[in-house]
């Protein structure tokens, strides 16, 4: 009998290769659909599950997803080719190839070179195709997948709070990552973001496959405890569809865990997924600048890659809010890019530029130049520099609220 899971496990041959070659860990998430034999009311599950991953519901869509993921890996081969070309350009202009340049300077140097530009064009085209194949599928089958979410909205475990009247700031209304509608503008933002980010991380060597939430599980395993060891309540700020939220509950099963995000469709999908996994977490459509939680409510506040999607002034407000809702002795640990300043080698600056300008990362350059550590201290946190990085390669920012 053909074992479809063996043949087409969500972690593809490409993903497995990436993980094996670059040290991506095997799945270590605790809960799987199979463990609990869950079949909640209204669940649409057309092709079964692999661990905790509900397979992409259509073979052709899955295969195209597999292609774009493989293409992301291939795309990395442009780097040495483009860098060689850039070296020649720099030499012809009498410039230092190893010098540090701004994004504007880098773009000006390479804008007329077709090979270098092909590296950007192919990345963006592949990204557009990734979103299109997923969005087209869910729009075509919208009725059954909207009905699936409706069946889950008021079901548990866990709760869902949606607020269609939420005042969503313009800075987050953008089509971040050129995902159609961004985080807030499409009923299937959660579905798209789930499959899209799985493709994205599988195509990045140091992140690796994430179909079993490996990345979030690794992060949560490395989170420190508060100094007194007490963890009653945890908040995941800007939780998207709740991968980190769910992983937090799995590590701290006795804690009350919340995930908030401005994206209604994101938290809605996140609630449905957590409910399908039988995990008791609370999702709410709220703004990280003004969470609505009481002072000192949480022992741990954390977040994953939200700050680079926020302008500096608003980041200061989010940090002030995180400080307000953290209890004395608790902490905020935001996982996001390291702040590296606004200069770098030409090709890396060119990549940052296309990511910023054409992959719709409007605030990313501003964040990279932002002094996040000082801003956390200005908000009141005391940085603990002895804590190891929760996600190596990203910023290390363990901000304690000392009594």
């Amino acid at each position: 009998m053909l074992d479809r899971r063996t043949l087409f496990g969500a972690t593809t041959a490409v993903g497995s290769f990436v993980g094996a070659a670059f040290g991506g860990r095997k799945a270590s998430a605790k809960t799987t659909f199979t463990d609990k034999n869950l079949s909640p009311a209204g669940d649409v599950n057309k092709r079964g599950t692999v661990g905790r991953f509900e397979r992409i519901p259509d073979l052709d869509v899955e295969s195209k997803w597999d292609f774009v993921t493989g293409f992301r890996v291939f795309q990395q081969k442009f780097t040495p080719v483009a860098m060689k070309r850039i070296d020649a350009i720099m030499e012809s202009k009498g410039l230092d190839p190893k010098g540090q340049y701004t994004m504007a300077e880098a773009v000006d140097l390479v804008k007329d070179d077709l090979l270098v530009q092909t590296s950007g064009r192919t990345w963006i085209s592949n990204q557009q195709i990734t979103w299109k194949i997923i969005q087209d599928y869910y729009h075509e089958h919208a009725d059954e997948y909207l009905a699936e979410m409706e069946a889950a909205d008021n079901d548990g475990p866990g709760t869902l709070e949606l607020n269609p009247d939420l005042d969503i700031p313009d800075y987050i209304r953008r089509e971040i990552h050129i995902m159609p509608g961004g985080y807030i503008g499409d009923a299937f933002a959660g579905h798209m973001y789930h499959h899209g980010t799985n493709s994205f991380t599988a195509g990045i060597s140091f992140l690796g496959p994430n179909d079993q939430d490996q990345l979030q599980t690794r992060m949560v395993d490395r989170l420190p405890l508060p100094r007194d060891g007490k963890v009653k309540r945890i908040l995941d700020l800007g939780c998207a569809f709740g991968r980190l939220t769910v992983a937090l509950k799995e590590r701290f099963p006795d804690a009350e865990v919340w995930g908030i995000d401005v994206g209604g469709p994101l938290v809605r999908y996140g609630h449905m997924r957590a409910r399908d996994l039988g995990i008791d977490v609370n999702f709410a459509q709220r703004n990280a600048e003004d969470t609505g939680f009481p002072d000192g409510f949480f022992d741990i506040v954390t977040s994953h890659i939200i700050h680079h999607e926020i302008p500096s002034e608003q980041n200061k407000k989010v940090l002030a809010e995180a400080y307000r809702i953290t209890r004395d002795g608790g902490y905020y640990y935001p996982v996001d890019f390291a702040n590296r300043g606004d200069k770098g080698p030409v090709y890396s600056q060119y990549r940052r530029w296309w990511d910023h300008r054409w992959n719709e990362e409007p605030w990313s350059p501003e964040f990279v130049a932002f002094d996040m550590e000082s801003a956390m201290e200005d908000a009141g946190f005391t940085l603990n520099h002895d804590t190891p990085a929760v996600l190596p390669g990203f910023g290390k920012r363990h901000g304690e609220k000392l009594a």
Partner: protein
Amino acid sequence: MATSKLKTDRPTYASDFIPSDVERAVFLGNPVLDNMMTSLIALGAEVWSNRRRMKVVEALLADKGVTTEMIEQYMPTAEQEAEWQKDRDRFIDLTYSPLLREGDLPVSAAFTRDNK
């Protein structure tokens, strides 16, 4: 690459968004070249989708006793070979004959009665 708009009477909890202008991006100096690059990648996704489906079919056939080995060893008849080659040549012609085109007139070239 056009994205679809969802029409439904069901609640979506989606909000107004600010569209990106990525559709206007020109990396390669000519939007047609950019478009061709996107088409080429999309074509790859379609071709791979077919090949991957074929792998499923082969795996299912193996369950029924038709093994990969039998597929590899299969010898077409002369008639089949001739028919398949015609199909192959149609595929090649459709895909690659545009590469042979020697265009030399700018789009603004004026019409004259001597155009041939």
